[in-house]
């Protein structure tokens, strides 16, 4: 028997030839870090666990996409939980700005002109699978886009939020154009999707709810008669207890809406302005909406959760399910002072050379680290914060490197 044959013979005797589906089932029952270790066991397991599949929200590794220079084909990604920096080849990003994300999907935008009218072209790009979805062009007056789910799912919906006034627009597969919805007083500070509804936070910290079913019925039901008024869509009003949340510190705070395992969280980040130039975060407060009483209840402990907080996208992960990271923590990236600014305002020249589109206010962040960790229960310590990374030009974006891709491309994560 030749050496090769004897080895093959030995392999045939390896008693563990688990069916592929079983191996995947086991991988679902262990933490992400364990799953990564499983993928490094042998070729066969690597092939099975590295098989490409549409990701689910909590399956993968949270990473920070550093916006960097828009004219580069590669983007720097910081895998904050394993202290690793890698380059993501993203030719689609060339000449574009990353507006936000949803799991492993990125929202890329650039300017286009139609009959001399400036419009924003939106592409949803999955850098891992290579999938792309083009959305109809938008007017240049929106500051945030929220996705209800993965763009590869049939029933997903996008919402864009206008700056200055409380104006919205919706798009979903099958719709030819954006469905505009407006307008009432106030501004929308942040928005998120949670349990079948979009939630919007106005500048008085009131929360508004819009059920996706009402948007579908407004679109299909009264398409001709529809005049784009907010009143035509049923909007749930969730009055926040203003006396608690609206205070002197409000001006020196950012407020975010975050979805975390079916809970709707309101996160307030208080800061000092340092020499009027950059912000220094002082503390965090987290409230959870009680859907029955419609009252925000203060959360003192996030338990196993880690929140990833940012202007363009916030999300949460379980430290236990990941097997790495600091539980009961907020991972933040530094937002520009003017949170309602759109980065491409007035600065986007015809060549789309994004080096010129750095908004003034954002540029003031010189010297500020671009991400950090805040751990609850650590407030009295000298260092409740740990800022890391480098100053940067734009808002960085949290996104998720999907599990299958990590299994193929990154080595096991060392346990501490």
């Amino acid at each position, binding site marked *: 028997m030749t050496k090769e044959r004897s080895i093959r013979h030995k*392999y045939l005797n*390896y*008693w*563990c*030839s*688990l*069916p592929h*589906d*079983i191996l995947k*089932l*086991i991988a679902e*029952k*262990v*933490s992400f870090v*364990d799953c990564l*270790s*499983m993928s*490094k*066991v*042998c*070729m*066969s*397991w*690597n092939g099975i666990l590295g098989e490409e599949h549409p990701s689910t929200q909590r399956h993968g590794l949270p990473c920070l996409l*550093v916006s960097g220079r828009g004219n580069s084909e*590669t983007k*720097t990604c910081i895998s904050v939980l394993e*202290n*690793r*920096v*890698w*380059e*993501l*080849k*993203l030719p689609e990003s060339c000449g574009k700005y990353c507006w936000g994300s949803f799991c492993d999907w990125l929202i890329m935008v650039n300017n286009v002109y139609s009959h001399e009218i400036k419009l924003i072209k939106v592409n949803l790009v999955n*850098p*891992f699978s290579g999938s792309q979805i083009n959305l109809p062009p938008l007017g240049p007056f929106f500051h945030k886009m929220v996705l209800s789910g993965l763009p590869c799912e049939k029933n997903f919906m996008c919402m864009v939020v206008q700056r200055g006034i409380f104006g919205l627009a919706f798009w979903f597969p099958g719709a030819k154009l954006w469905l505009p919805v407006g307008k009432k007083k106030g501004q929308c500070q942040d928005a998120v999707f949670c349990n079948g509804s979009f939630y919007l936070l106005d500048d008085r910290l009131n929360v508004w709810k819009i059920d996706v079913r009402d948007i579908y019925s407004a679109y299909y039901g009264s398409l001709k008669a529809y005049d784009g008024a907010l009143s035509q869509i049923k909007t749930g009003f969730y009055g926040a207890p203003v006396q608690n949340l609206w205070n002197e510190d409000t001006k020196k705070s950012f407020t975010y809406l975050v979805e975390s395992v079916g809970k709707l969280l309101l996160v307030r980040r208080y800061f000092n302005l340092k020499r009027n130039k950059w912000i220094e975060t002082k503390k965090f407060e987290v409230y959870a909406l009680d859907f029955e009483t419609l009252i925000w209840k203060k959360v003192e402990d996030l338990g196993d959760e880690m929140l990833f907080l940012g202007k363009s996208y916030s999300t949460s992960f379980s430290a236990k399910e990941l097997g790495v990271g600091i539980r009961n923590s907020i991972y933040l990236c530094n937002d520009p002072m003017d949170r309602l600014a759109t980065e491409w305002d007035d600065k986007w020249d015809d060549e789309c050379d994004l080096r010129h589109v750095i908004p003034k206010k954002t540029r003031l962040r010189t*010297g500020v*680290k671009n991400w950090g960790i805040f751990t609850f229960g650590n407030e009295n310590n000298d260092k409740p914060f*740990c800022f*890391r*990374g*480098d*100053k940067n030009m734009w808002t960085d974006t949290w996104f998720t490197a999907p599990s299958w891709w990590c299994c193929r*491309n*990154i*080595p*096991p994560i*060392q*346990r501490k």
Partner: protein
Amino acid sequence: MKMMKPYVWLQTSDDSIQQVEQEIAMFCPLICQEIIQKGMGSSKNCAICLPQQVSPAMLSLILDYCRFHQVPGRSNKERKSYDEKFVRIDTERLCELTSAADSLQLKPLVDLTSRALARIIEGKTPEEIRDIFHLPDDLTENVEVEEEHVDDRSVDDLLSFINGNDGGKLNILTILIFVFT
């Protein structure tokens, strides 16, 4: 209503044929389908041919499991403690059992055994898992797992190094760069 036959004939992977209480065997969806849809198993001559993953030893284990859970009125605590003891077998048999239960589409048992396998894997390095499951080390030679680059410095050391003291440009020289292909 058709009268329930008390026994069913099953043929395992070694071609041996045995008689099993139908009530118990019907717990396995695959056997259930064979009986109801194809009318198999009523005699030794038309015994139900079980998938090759099911050896007589595995069949006996699976039937033990079905027999216990088929009895009504057991408390959740009793069932849980039975299940815990049931999967306290060596890893090799646990794998065989999982494959056999999977081939019979017996989902609750697949779930139980795969959870037990997950617990074995938890917290282990790829090398340790390879040893436990007797799997070939055929990956490291083909795929670059650049272990020599693993940085065991503390987070703060690493970061102050990355940042430099002046908060200057990101220096990624020492850190792995993965190029997406």
